[in-house]
């Protein structure tokens, strides 16, 4: 009898311990979100979104160029990363059962684990060394390389979810294979792919390490692909490790802006998937 009590007690204790881990895991999340919002909101103003950074001690100023720079870098990354990532994913889903397909799938999986700082050095060797200068292009390529494996794998899964009967129906009507792939299969998977793209963009926008020695930074506006470019993340880093109190404030506010950006992208992705799932049911 005693032994049963003991076993029940252990059961209850283990259940409580497991429940406690949920609270332990959520504590940092709550702390990060609360502090970024509360400390960041203090420095929020319209100027923060539109003005250039000011030197230490000078009031006002913003991170307008860094926000534009992040958009620019992510745009460049999408230009290269989206076609390659989605194309590779479609290849894997439709023709990826051979040896080449397996090799590419395995490569994409392993590539998605490569640290982003390593990708930074690759883009440095690929573009910064031959061009002899840090540039938006190098930063964009670094982000694109990070996007490709992730996009390829999710696109493959999404395309494989499209029922075979849809494709067969289209082929039976005499539609070309390529047209079937594009306007029947991809069209059906489009909602999921948009979600994957939004998530890839949100991840790219939050990357810092691969930009440190590719896009570098810039105190001014820049629209040229061969010039150094500011980004929100690098700007947060520089502000945070500076010894100045008013720059720390700007780091928190810029972090709030970054979180809002990343958060809204994630939310959009989530809403998109939910709408699609409901359609499918």
């Amino acid at each position, binding site marked *: 009898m005693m032994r049963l009590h003991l076993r029940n007690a252990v059961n209850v204790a283990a259940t409580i311990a497991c429940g406690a881990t949920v609270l332990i895991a959520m504590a940092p999340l709550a702390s*990060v979100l609360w502090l970024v919002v509360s400390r960041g909101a203090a420095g929020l103003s319209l100027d923060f979104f539109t003005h250039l950074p000011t030197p230490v001690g000078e009031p006002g100023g913003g991170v307008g160029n860094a926000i534009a720079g992040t958009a620019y870098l992510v745009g460049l990354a999408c230009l290269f990363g989206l076609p390659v990532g989605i194309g590779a994913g479609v290849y*894997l889903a439709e023709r990826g059962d051979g040896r080449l397909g397996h090799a590419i799938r395995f490569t994409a999986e*392993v590539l998605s*684990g490569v640290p982003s700082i390593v990708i930074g050095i*690759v883009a440095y060797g690929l573009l910064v*060394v031959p061009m002899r200068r840090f540039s938006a292009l190098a930063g964009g390529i670094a982000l694109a390389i990070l996007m490709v494996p992730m996009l*390829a794998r999710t696109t493959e899964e999404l395309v494989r979810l499209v029922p*075979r009967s849809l494709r067969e129906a289209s082929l039976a009507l*005499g539609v070309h294979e390529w047209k079937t792939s594009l306007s029947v299969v991809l069209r059906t998977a489009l909602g999921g792919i948009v979600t994957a793209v939004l998530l890839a963009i949100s991840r790219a926008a939050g990357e810092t390490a691969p930009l*440190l020695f590719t896009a570098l930074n810039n105190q001014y506006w820049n629209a040229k692909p061969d010039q150094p470019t500011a980004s929100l993340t690098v700007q947060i880093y520089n502000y945070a490790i500076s010894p100045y109190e008013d720059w720390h404030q700007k780091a928190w506010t810029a972090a709030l802006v970054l979180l809002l950006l990343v958060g809204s992208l994630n939310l959009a992705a989530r809403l998109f998937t939910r709408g699609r799932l409901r359609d499918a049911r």
Partner: protein
Amino acid sequence: MRLERTADVTGPVGRAPVAPAGPLLPANRGDRLFAVGLTIFAGIVLLIAGLIVLMLLRVAHPLSASTSIAKFITGTDWDPVQLSFGALPFIYGTVVTSIVAIVLAVPVSVGLAVFLVEIAPARVQPIVSFLIETLAAIPSVVYGLWGLFVLVPLLRSPVEPFLRQVFGFLPLFRGPAIGVGYLAAGLILAIMILPTIASVTIEVLKTVPPPLREGAYGLGATRWEAIRMAVLPYARNGIVGAVLLGLGRALGETMAVTMVIGNSHEIHASLFAPGYSLPAIIANEFAEATGPLYVGALAGLALVLFGITIVLNAVARLLVHGVGSRASA
């Protein structure tokens, strides 16, 4: 949809389509072009992998003239002025911070996964899953900012003095409590890899067949006993894979670690001491590195990091997939 192509359908009319993988219609120019295009995009993935290795080797090449691989990896001296480069302090820092992260994150994330899949009511799961996703979506520089201004002061006092008082007999917990250091980096890594380990573990636990649990209950096990004796042993390989995936993320994580590890080029036994990890020193010194040898040494560190993460990821994926295929078999 117009049926303009019915005229030139010359495919096997009388036969049933037995080979769904192959083309059902004879290839035409559009299909061939499309296939070539797709193959090129897919080939770029292989090209990227090749480029990564090639570029790392090329940028690191100047290093090979001045030192050997063994000397580079075991060297403890990092002095760009004297052009003396040893990677050991940074390998040590990477390993130590990752171990701290794993030790802290594994019990919490596995406990969380067990709670969600085995214990909590089903409607709790999407909420907590959403929170875990949010944890994973926060950019690492934001964690770094939080670590620098919240975690580090907290460690400086009261956490580190407390640990020194209680565990001071261990060399790990000695020395001045300055906040930044291996412990701060390990803690922030633990927070960052938690979502990875937890979400993979949740997926793995979901693949455990219900009859296993039912069998344990049928034998009179309590819920915890069923989890410990039936569920966890079955999922063990998958959980190890999840931990390795988390470890892979911890090894390569850059910004948050760079901001709290303290930037010291020496090896310290104490967790309270400042150090450096492989990604952190690359992030801090690469943009300002002068001369091909210095740049080459930093790229050499990246090669070491690349090698470690590749091996780790390959092993982890094999383990995670192993559980999945066993469950479906």
